[in-house]
């Protein structure tokens, strides 16, 4: 099976969907002539032309809102935010318009838009460029939120997101763009809302999303190697819809849970998951659900300190041991 990067997987997904559906258009800052700030769309302008691959001005409220309007009339715009952090500039268009238009029209209007871009820290770009807004986005009924942790999922989830008739926030990760794994050629879909058990285990469930899953897998190796602990690693892949069953089944099996994510702790996805476990699997727990997040402050610039602020293999390993005490 071919091994391709997360970046190439995203490009393949968007290209296949552009070829499949004449209403799909990719728009964003630097996506066309510049070949993409992170080269996700490299070569796509040459292949599909300026009608399908559109450079926008730096004008997030304007072009995201424009995409919402175009989606209302039947296009399927894929809007790239150079950094997902810039969603804040388009907040009204995303969360008042895209999220609410179906509801406020009594179901008369759909908004099949995908808003995508990297949402992560760890690259020393400071607090303005390091937002991890998955819980903020998922807070809004009407919105779907997807956070792929690897190339295979990135492709399959992107194709599903583009075909989805509801607005999807698709949160990528600059650190993962160059990470590769086996990805089959051609058509496959990963449905939104289906978690993936990345590693089966019996002693603790390490649940999370995004790049934290890659770190958790390494931490699980360490736990096995040093303490013969069998950790199960569950990648949610999709925050809303959420695979509650897989979460509960894992926790019922292991009786312990550590939720790992790059977000800040307050009202995080992990907080929601801990609440669900408490409601629905309390009797199975042998320890309180533990969460590991970024340290609760704006993203620090200082490169060695930013490493410490984010989840790391070492921090996950330690938190898992704490949960198992």
């Amino acid at each position, binding site marked *: 099976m071919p091994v391709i990067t997360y970046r190439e997987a995203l490009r393949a997904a968007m290209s296949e969907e552009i070829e499949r559906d004449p209403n799909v*258009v990719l728009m964003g800052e630097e996506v066309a002539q510049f070949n993409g700030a992170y080269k996700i769309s490299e070569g796509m302008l040459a292949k599909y032309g300026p*009608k399908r691959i559109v450079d*926008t*001005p730096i*004008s997030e*409220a*304007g*072009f*995201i*809102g*424009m*995409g*919402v*309007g*175009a*989606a*209302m*009339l*039947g*296009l399927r715009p894929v809007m790239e935010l150079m950094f997902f952090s810039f969603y804040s500039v388009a907040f*009204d*268009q995303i969360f*008042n*318009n895209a999220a609410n*238009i*179906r*509801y*406020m*029209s*009594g*179901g*008369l*209007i*759909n908004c099949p838009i995908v808003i995508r871009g990297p949402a992560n820290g760890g690259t020393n770009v400071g607090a303005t460029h390091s937002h991890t807004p998955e819980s903020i986005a998922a807070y809004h*009924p*009407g919105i*779907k939120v997807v956070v792929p942790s690897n190339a295979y999922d990135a492709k399959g989830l992107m194709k*599903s997101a583009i*075909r*989805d*008739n*509801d607005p999807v926030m698709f949160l990528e990760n600059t650190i993962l763009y160059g990470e590769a794994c086996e990805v089959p050629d051609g058509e496959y*879909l990963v*449905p*939104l*809302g*289906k*978690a993936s058990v990345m590693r089966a285990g019996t002693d603790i469930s390490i649940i999370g999303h995004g790049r934290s899953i890659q770190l958790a897998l390494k931490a699980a190796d360490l736990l096995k190697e040093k303490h013969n602990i069998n950790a199960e690693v569950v990648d949610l892949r*999709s925050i*809303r*819809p*959420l*695979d*509650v*069953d897989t979460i509960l089944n894992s926790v019922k099996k292991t009786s312990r849970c550590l939720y790992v994510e790059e977000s800040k702790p307050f009202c995080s996805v992990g907080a*929601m998951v801990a609440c*669900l476990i408490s*409601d629905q699997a309390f009797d199975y727990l042998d320890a309180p659900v533990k969460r590991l997040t970024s340290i609760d402050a704006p993203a620090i610039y200082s490169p060695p300190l930013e490493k410490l602020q984010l989840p790391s293999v070492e921090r996950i390993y330690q938190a898992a041991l704490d949960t198992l005490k």
Partner: protein
Amino acid sequence: MFADLSLNNGTLAPHYYFNLKAFPVTKKPSSSKKPEVTNLGYDARQAPINIKLGQDEKIALYRDMVRIRRFEERCLRSYQQGKIGGFLHLYIGQESIAVGCTSVMGKDDHIITAYRDHGHALAVGMGMNEMMAENYGKVTGCSKGKGGSMHYFDPSRNFWGGHGIVGGQIPLGTGLAYALKYKGLKGACMAFMGDGSVNQGAVHESYNLAALWSLPVIFIIENNGYSMGTSQERSSAGPSLAQRAEGYGMNWAIIEDGHDVLAVRDQVGQALKLAHDKSLPSVLEIRTYRYRGHSVADPDTTYRDKAEIEAYKSTKDPLSVFQLSLLAEQTLTTELIQKIDESARAEAETSAQFAEASPYPSLEDIKKDVYWEIDNPADRKSVGALFFD
């Protein structure tokens, strides 16, 4: 005249549209004053788009304006009786704009507006029953009671709302125009906003995108002089609102006679032609006036006095002006005027009865119309929970 403009090069057009001396920034809204320079020789009735109007079509324009006013007067009564929640933004005084603009729409032309949306909704053909029921929060409302007075929609009539955030609908309107152009349709979007919208960043971003990509969108500023309770001179810099289009190389015009439904038709018709034929955007500032407060619950005495309202009503009321004109040319008779009025009142009264008799949405309805997939379970592709307790 519009078509004579040198396009997108900042060239000013003939003085009727652009002579800024005609529209000085005054302490009173200019809409209640006679311009210093009048539109000498211009008679909207003689414009090609209006000359071809048959008697029935003129009567229909008049009837639509009357229906809007009577509907809103009935809304006001219901609001005062506590039947309608939230806000009620009345369009009374501005009827000529929605009716004039929508009367020139073709099958691929679309509109979107802000929260003062009753006039536009009726003008595109939505029914009073579904509108009043929406105001009452009833399940028979046009949005099943989920949107309220500010959020009417009817995509089947090319009407895309009804939006609550000042200026927030303008990028959407730009997107509708983008989609029309993308699909190769000979249509345009009229994106309506109030004078309070023009200082929102999203509006300027939309101007830039529309001009940059030659989108068939007409930005229509219904300038009633006040953004809520703050006059234009206290909120907006520059000699006029429409002139800001120059910065984007866009065509622009001021329609001083916004109370004249035929003048509105003429000017908007020309902008629409420009959008259809050359896919060019325009900014039109239409001078108008609202008789009621921003929302009827808002005090209306802190920023203007009654005399100002009366002065406008007595000289520029859109219904009265058109009525007199049609009477003079014998298109209307006093009997017909009375009949139209009675019919509109009865229609509005019926809508209130319909709304009153309709049921509220159920508790289960709260979670419907959130996700397309939940409402179409047979076609659902995703799995997992979309709602949480």
